[in-house]
């Protein structure tokens, strides 16, 4: 089983660095094959909303940069993990850049999910989704928006199981381990 971590941290973000290490350990010990992509080290242009990945080169973004690999990794994974500093309740621009470039895994055609219009998926494989956000200090409103965003993303990719965790920047490795362990357990990827 393959897991991909999209690390949307800024430079020198020790907390997300620790979270990433801990998650890799937890998944590896459950026999997951894990790949970590540090997004700020990649050349990923912003999605231009041209829909070329639907109507020109179906399934492949027309921008030839590392963003193509992002869509490929997302399509081939069984588990997606997003790591981000919580930014106005949402994802950092670094993470969002990658998330926007996963558009090719969707089809332009529509279906109803709980009575709401959504895009159909291009592939049969469905990804579980776990998103970990870091806050500098506890902020329930921001955390609530973050959780709602993860819910919406999970609906979009027709995810069979999803969850989110909000971790405070000053947290120690032990607390991080406990929170990520619970998250991964809740979505059924570790025992």
């Amino acid at each position: 089983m393959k897991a991909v971590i999209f690390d949307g941290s800024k430079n020198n973000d020790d907390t997300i660095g620790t979270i990433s290490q801990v998650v890799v350990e937890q998944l590896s010990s459950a026999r997951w094959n894990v790949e970590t992509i540090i997004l700020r080290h990649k050349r990923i242009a912003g999605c231009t909303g041209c829909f070329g990945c639907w109507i020109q080169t179906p399934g492949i973004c027309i921008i030839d940069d590392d963003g193509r690999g992002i869509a490929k990794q997302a399509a081939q994974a069984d588990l997606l993990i997003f790591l981000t500093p919580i930014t106005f309740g949402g994802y950092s621009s670094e993470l969002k850049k990658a998330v926007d470039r996963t558009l090719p895994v969707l089809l332009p055609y529509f279906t109803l999910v709980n009575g709401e219009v959504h895009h159909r998926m291009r592939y049969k494989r469905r990804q579980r989704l776990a998103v970990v956000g870091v806050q500098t200090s506890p902020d329930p409103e921001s955390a609530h928006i973050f959780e709602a965003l993860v819910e919406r993303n999970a609906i979009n990719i027709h995810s069979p199981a999803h969850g989110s965790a909000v971790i405070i920047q000053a947290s120690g490795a032990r607390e991080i381990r406990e929170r990520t362990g619970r998250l991964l357990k809740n979505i059924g990827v570790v025992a």
Partner: protein
Amino acid sequence: MSQNKRALLLVGSPKCEKSNSEAIGTYLMELLGEKGVVWDRAYSYRLTRTADGREKLLNDVHRADILVFASPLYIDSIPSFTIKAMELINEHRRSTESPKEQKLFVVVNSGFPEPAHNQTALAIYRRFALESGLKWAGGARIGWGMAIDGRPLDSVGGMVRNLKKGLQLAAEALAANIQVSKEAEELMSKPFMPLFLAKLMTSVAGGVGWNRQARKNGVKEKMYDKPYETY
């Protein structure tokens, strides 16, 4: 009263001048212009790409009393480069000793028929205002953007009458330096047609439209291609 006020429309769509964000935002700005507000326009997609652009963005934002951000919905949120612009503005304001008093009004539009798709993006904008010390003036959630198709609102027809009425009320409130009313927000966010009809048309006509474009590009038969399939 609004004689000396300045407003900035930040278009958050990479389609820039051809976008629905531009069409809706410009309609609002022209109404503000009629009330004596001096307005300008900037594009987050272009400005966030270079150091000069980023500096111009911060200067343009600083000059305004009223900020209007109009963007499409990208994967349940705001496009990455517009979030980048927000990060830059936030950093700038937080590092300024006495940041200028400014208010923020936003428009989020998407192709989905249900305006509710835009709810999370609107909440993120609101948090941005709060965390950046901007006064939140309100926002609109607009669905079924395909009806606008980048055209000026006056050429779209009766379907956008509620949107235009709501924008009129929003302009009056912004020019008078008061909060945009819930009534105006609801008018702007009202579906262009009964929701069941918009959903039906999206599902059926939407597919036909994509097929037509694919056929024009000679890839109609490849629409379901799975280039990254591993089993």
